[in-house]
C-alpha cells in the first residue's frame, strides 16, 4: 500500500460549462468511486491530469486509479463532455413533505417537478400514509378504467394475494359510480401462487367479491397438458434451464383470465402490471426494434387487456397494504435471465436518478403504442395469440415441454 500520509492528494474537480465543482476523495478511493459517489456519469467526463511539475494537463485513462496512485498530479480535471448541467436533476436537496397523518407513514416517494419555464427540477420527498397511497392508487385506477372499460361492464381481474392485487382491488372497489362488476381470479400450480390463495380469499371477502380459484389441473389444461402429468414448473425448468418461470407464468395468467372472461361473456381482463413493469416491457421492445405494445388497454384476439396500475410506482402500491407486500416478497424466486435483469435495472436506475422522468417515458410510449396498435394473430400450433413468427426450434422446444407428460424417473 502506498504511504500517502506525508503528501498532498490531487484536487479533483468536475469542469462543466456551468461551473467548476470540487469533489472530495480519499487516498484509497478510485476515480470511478468518486464519480459514482457524486452521481457523475463516468462516460460523460474526460480526465485530464495536471502535473505537479508544471506543463500542460494530459488526458489520462485513470478510472481505476486511486488518488494515492497519482504521484505527480496536483489536480485532476474531469471535463464534462456536453454543455449540460449534470447536477440539475440531483434529488439530494429535496424538500420533505410530511404525510397527512404523521406517525403512520408506510412509504415515501421522490416527486420531481420539471419546470421548463424556469429550467428547474425541484424534488420533494413525500412521506405517505397508507390512506394517501390508497387515494393515489384509486385515482390512477379510476382514470384508466373509466377510459378503457365501459360503465356496467364485467371485468375479470388476475390476483395473486400480494400487495399489487390488493391495491388493484381497492382501486376498483372505489369505482362505484362507474358500476363495473369485478371478477377476481387466482391460479394455482406453483408454490408461490398457491401460497397467495388464503390471502386472496381474505381480500376478496373484504371487498365482497367472489374469488375464482383455478386449480393446477385446470391451469395445465389451458396449454393442453394432461391434468395428471408432471408439474408445470418442473416441465419448464427441465426444458428451459436458467430461464425464468415469470414468462410462462404471465402467459398462463392471460390465458386463464381470457377463459374466465369468455365464460362470463365479457372481453375485459385486467392485471396488476405497474409503472416499472410497463416501461420495462416497452423499453425492451423499442431496444429490439419493436414498436411499443399498446397500453394501458391492449386488444389480444377477443379480449381487451386493461392495465389500471400502469402509472402507479411499486413503492406507492406497496404503501397501500404494507403487510401483504412483505409476504409477497418473501415468496419470491430469483430471476436469472440477463435481459429481464437488464431492462428492470435500467428502469430503476432512471427512476431513482430522474424521478420526474419515468412517467413521461411511460406516457410517451403509451401515446406511441396507441397510434398503430400491435396486432396479435392466433397461432394454430400453440393455441393462443402471438405477435411474431415463432422460430421453429423454439416452437419445438415449447411443444416438447408441453408434451413431456411422463414423470421423470427417479
Amino acid at each position, binding site marked *: 500500500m502506498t504511504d500517502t500520509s506525508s503528501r498532498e492528494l490531487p484536487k479533483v474537480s468536475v469542469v462543466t*460549462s*456551468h461551473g467548476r465543482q470540487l469533489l472530495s476523495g480519499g487516498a484509497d478511493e478510485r476515480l470511478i468511486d468518486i464519480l459514482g459517489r457524486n452521481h457523475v456519469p463516468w462516460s460523460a467526463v474526460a480526465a485530464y491530469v495536471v502535473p505537479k511539475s508544471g506543463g500542460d494537463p494530459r488526458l489520462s485513462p485513470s478510472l481505476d486509479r486511486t488518488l494515492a496512485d497519482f504521484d505527480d498530479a496536483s489536480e485532476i480535471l474531469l471535463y464534462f463532455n456536453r454543455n449540460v448541467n449534470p447536477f440539475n436533476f440531483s434529488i439530494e436537496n429535496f424538500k*420533505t*413533505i410530511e404525510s*397527512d397523518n404523521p406517525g403512520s407513514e408506510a412509504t415515501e416517494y421522490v416527486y420531481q*417537478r420539471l419546470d*421548463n419555464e424556469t429550467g428547474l427540477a425541484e424534488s420533494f420527498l413525500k412521506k405517505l400514509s397508507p390512506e394517501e397511497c390508497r387515494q393515489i392508487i384509486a*385515482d390512477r385506477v379510476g382514470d384508466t378504467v373509466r377510459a378503457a372499460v365501459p360503465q356496467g361492464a364485467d371485468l375479470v381481474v388476475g390476483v395473486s394475494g400480494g400487495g399489487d392485487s390488493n391495491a388493484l382491488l381497492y382501486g376498483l372497489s372505489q369505482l362505484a359510480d362507474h358500476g363495473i362488476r369485478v371478477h377476481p381470479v387466482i391460479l394455482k400450480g406453483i408454490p408461490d401462487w398457491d401460497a397467495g390463495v388464503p390471502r386472496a380469499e381474505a381480500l376478496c371477502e373484504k371487498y365482497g367479491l367472489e374469488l375464482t380459484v383455478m386449480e393446477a389441473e385446470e391451469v395445465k389444461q389451458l396449454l393442453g397438458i394432461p391434468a395428471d402429468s408432471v408439474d408445470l414448473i418442473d416441465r419448464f425448468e427441465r426444458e428451459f434451464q436458467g430461464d425464468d418461470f415469470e414468462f410462462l407464468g404471465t402467459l398462463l395468467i392471460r390465458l386463464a383470465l381470457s377463459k374466465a372472461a369468455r365464460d362470463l361473456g365479457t372481453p375485459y381482463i385486467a392485471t396488476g402490471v405497474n409503472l416499472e413493469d410497463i416501461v420495462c416491457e416497452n423499453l425492451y421492445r423499442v431496444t429490439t426494434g419493436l414498436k411499443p405494445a399498446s397500453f394501458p388497454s391492449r386488444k389480444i384476439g377477443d379480449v381487451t387487456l386493461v392495465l389500471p396500475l400502469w*402509472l402507479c410506482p411499486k413503492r406507492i402500491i406497496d404503501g397501500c397494504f404494507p403487510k401483504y407486500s412483505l409476504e409477497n416478497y418473501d415468496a419470491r424466486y430469483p430471476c436469472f435471465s440477463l435481459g429481464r435483469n437488464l431492462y428492470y435495472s435500467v428502469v430503476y436506475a432512471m427512476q431513482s436518478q430522474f424521478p*420526474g422522468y419515468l412517467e413521461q417515458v411511460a406516457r410517451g410510449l403509451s401515446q406511441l403504442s396507441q397510434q398503430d396498435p400491435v396486432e396479435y394473430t392466433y397461432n394454430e400450433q400453440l393455441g393462443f395469440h402471438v405477435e411474431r413468427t415463432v422460430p421453429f426450434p423454439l416452437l419445438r422446444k415449447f411443444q416438447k415441454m408441453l408434451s413431456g407428460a411422463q414423470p421423470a424417473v427417479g
Partner: protein
Amino acid sequence: MREAVSTAVQSSNFNLKNELVELIPSGVAAERAVMGVRELEAFRAAGSFVPASKHGLEVITGASCETGAQ
C-alpha cells in the same frame, strides 16, 4: 446578428467553467414543504412533457438532430 444576449452576459456565462461553484449541494439543510398528494400527482402523472429546447425549437430545427447535437 447577435442581439438577443448582451456581450457581457455571454462572456460571463462562457467563463463559468473556470469558476468554483456549488453544483452539488453540501450540508443539506432539512427543508420542508406543504403540498397535498393531488397536487404532487398532477405533475407526476399528468405534467407537461419537457421539450428539448426551452421554446420547442426542435419542431423547426430538429430534422438534423432534435436534441441539438452538432
